[in-house]
């Protein structure tokens, strides 16, 4: 059952990202684990693509403990915005640690610096996990500004963007405002299972 769910999610993400430059995925917290697994499976299946995964939700260590296969994926770089703030300071290959999720300019700069080193012909993808957690650590207005910058810059550089928004009570208005900046919105529902 779990495999079917993950395969279906992978399929939905793949077909959406093939035709849209940016997609926003709105999901309930209960589907978070399956969704990121589906994303990583998708990344692993396309080794010719270049991916950046910005994590504001969980420390890299935590994600890799739950999904050990991600440490073997060669075409992904992580920007971990949460470990340093959580007091985890283990240097890890392929992971850039940002001292705090409030350092939005630094997150933006690291994204662009990594993509600058990628062959221009390679298809490039960015995942922001998640807008919800960026809002927890920052004022919603500044997250909107940050996300606008990211969307505009990635569009100009032909980079596809996937941004996750985990539904949270009291945050609907902010998340809706942000998620609608994307070209396509995928709503994942519990009923989908």
């Amino acid at each position: 059952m779990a495999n079917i769910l993950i395969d279906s999610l992978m399929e939905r993400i793949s077909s959406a990202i093939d035709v849209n430059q940016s997609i926003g995925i709105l999901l309930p917290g209960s589907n978070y684990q399956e969704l990121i697994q589906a994303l990583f499976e998708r990344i692993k299946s396309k080794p010719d693509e270049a991916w950046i995964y910005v994590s504001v939700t969980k420390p890299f260590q935590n994600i890799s403990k739950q999904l050990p296969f991600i440490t073997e994926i060669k075409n992904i770089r992580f920007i971990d915005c949460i470990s340093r703030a959580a007091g985890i300071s283990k240097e890890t290959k392929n992971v850039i640690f940002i001292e705090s999720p409030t350092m939005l300019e630094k997150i933006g700069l690291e994204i662009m610096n990594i993509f600058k080193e990628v062959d221009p012909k390679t298809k490039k993808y960015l995942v922001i996990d998640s807008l919800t957690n960026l809002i927890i650590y920052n004022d919603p207005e500044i997250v909107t500004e940050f996300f606008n910058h990211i969307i505009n810059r990635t569009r100009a550089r032909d980079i596809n963007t996937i941004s996750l928004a985990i539904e949270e009570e009291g945050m609907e208005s902010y998340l809706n405002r942000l998620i609608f900046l994307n070209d396509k919105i995928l709503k994942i529902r519990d009923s989908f299972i």
Partner: protein
Amino acid sequence: MPETQLKEDELCETGIEKLDEMLGGGIPTGSTVLVVGSSGTGKTTLCMQYLINGAKKGERGVFFTITEPLFKLTKNLDSFSFYDKKLVESGMVNLIDLRIISERLGLDTEKYTVEDANALLDILRDIAEELNVKRLVIDSITALCYRLQTPEMIRDFIFKLGSSLASMSCTTLLTSEIPPCKFQYSQYGIEEFISDGILFLGDVERKGDLIRTFQIVKMRGASHDRTKTAMLISTKNGVELETLLRSRE
């Protein structure tokens, strides 16, 4: 005076991509530029990167320090990937401790008389000329002036320094220390008047964290950007500038 488009050879590229873009290509050659900021804003790193980048293009430079000993300065530099020790060993980048020069000249290192200050000015100029440097940094003008005993001496010294620098063909950065969270350009209120340009390094607070900022306040002869940007410092790339997010600033 209207700003005219300067030719490439009339501009001194800092080698910091976005900064050069903001400057319209670089600092007009021969300018004296004040790099203003409080402690920890990145003045020394910015100046050092400017010198090292110049040396990599074949432009010799000199860094006069009066704020920290050379061993400390080089130890800090070692962590940056832009730093190349060979440039120092080959004499393309010269690091000089002004306190040691003062001692060798027999000057009181803590308090300068008018004669001491003049002697120091002469030696600065002689070194720059002898080494044929294209880029010069004094870190910091504030610490140098601190050793002068009266406001009149400071004023006189700064004006003489300004004339000396103007007569040399090199492009100079003078660092200026200010108290935190103050929008002022210098400690003595006169350094800015001998400067052709002012680069202001500051901070903005976001949720208790400090974000470094950068702004070109003036740059004579250049059609420059005046927007406030975020300034980031990493061991990999040194100083980098990035659009500052300003909601609720």
